[in-house]
């Protein structure tokens, strides 16, 4: 049985438009489910506590980034897997897992494949994947460069406009290493189990990443800056500098698409 936590507001109220098709698909695939509608994202931990049963196979977050982040927070200390059914085009985590749309996500539930992802923490927020820290102006410029049809049409020959806004930033890694510079952007990614350190920290101070990128690894990170910079998870602002980021030894199980097997020369024969 899957517990579906549904944000009906996500993706311009997409769930209401596709609800019938989702239930039909679930029935056709013989997937057992319970739907719980989220009225307020703040209530997600309460909803999980109230509705999650020990026999449940997974909690399925139906919505956008904020919904998924909320469900991750609620499941961080529970031994239950997380499924994601994206209801907006910018469900960052679904995209990073290779889940393209709600149809594919529902199909995955019929024969789920699990993958563990390390959990990180910023203040009271848990996260998986990565977070970005940059001034609002830089984030906006990057977003516009990415989404501009005109730039897509012109292609890579017309490089995006240089980021002009830098912020004096200090980082302390594991209380041992201090790094300082004029930050254009900062990205913190959770390392897998194989790396000796839990966080990968990329610190960009220039417009070209060639030799202006700093790459450090650590288990905890403090970021301070002379101006408040937003901390972005997916495309949600979850905090502002100064912040402390921790890579945890905890993992969350995620329902992911099956890895495509590569054909080898032998198989081809």
């Amino acid at each position: 049985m899957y517990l579906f936590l549904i944000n009906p507001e996500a993706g311009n109220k997409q769930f209401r438009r596709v609800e019938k098709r989702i239930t039909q698909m679930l029935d056709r695939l013989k997937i057992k489910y319970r739907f719980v509608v989220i009225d307020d994202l703040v209530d997600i931990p309460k909803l999980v506590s109230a509705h999650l049963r020990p026999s449940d196979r997974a909690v399925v977050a139906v919505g956008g980034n904020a919904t998924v982040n909320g469900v991750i927070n609620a499941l961080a200390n529970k031994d239950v897997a997380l499924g994601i059914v994206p209801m907006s085009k910018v469900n960052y985590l679904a995209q990073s897992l290779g889940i393209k749309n709600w149809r594919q996500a529902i199909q995955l539930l019929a024969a789920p494949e699990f993958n563990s992802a390390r959990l990180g923490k910023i203040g009271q927020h848990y996260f998986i994947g990565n977070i970005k820290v940059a001034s609002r102006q830089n984030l906006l410029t990057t977003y516009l460069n990415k989404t501009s049809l005109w730039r897509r049409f012109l292609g890579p020959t017309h490089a995006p406009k240089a980021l002009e806004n830098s912020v004096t930033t200090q980082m302390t890694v594991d209380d041992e290493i201090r790094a300082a510079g004029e930050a254009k952007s900062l990205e913190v990614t959770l390392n897998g189990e194989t790396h000796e350190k839990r966080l990968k920290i990329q610190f960009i101070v220039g417009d070209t990443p060639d030799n202006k990128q700093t790459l450090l690894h650590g288990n905890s990170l403090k970021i301070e800056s002379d101006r408040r910079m937003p901390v972005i998870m997916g495309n949600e602002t979850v905090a502002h500098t100064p912040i402390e980021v921790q890579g945890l030894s905890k993992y969350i199980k995620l329902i992911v698409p099956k890895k495509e097997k590569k054909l080898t020369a032998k198989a081809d024969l």
Partner: protein
Amino acid sequence: MKTRKDFADFTNPDTIVGRGVLVEGTLKTSGDIQINGEFKGKLITEGDVVVGEHAHVTADINAQNIYVAGEVIGNVNAIAKLDILETGKVAGSVSSSSLVIEAGGILKGNSTMYDTESERPEIAPTYEVEEVKEETESEVTA
């Protein structure tokens, strides 16, 4: 062992200090380290260290192979090879199994060469090894 060509292609280091960034502290890792900015403290790795042309390092360095194209002030210990390139400058005591100073490269300080395998010191341990050692010691004490 890395050649000069490999040095130029040193593209996938575990740790990088970029230009325009000052990093201070003790940096211990098992991977390769590339310094293009400024570093103060200690560098300890089981891998290689590259000090880029515009880098300023005030630190003791312990690594397998060390390539210096920038400026280093401190004691340098290369288990295998220390290569001071034409733009490189090292001020401090150096020890290595193999020392190359290219035309234009500067070394100000003492140099010790490891004659035999047994003379070569072990690289200071990384985090994981340290943790194991602590556990072993406590077990012995117990």
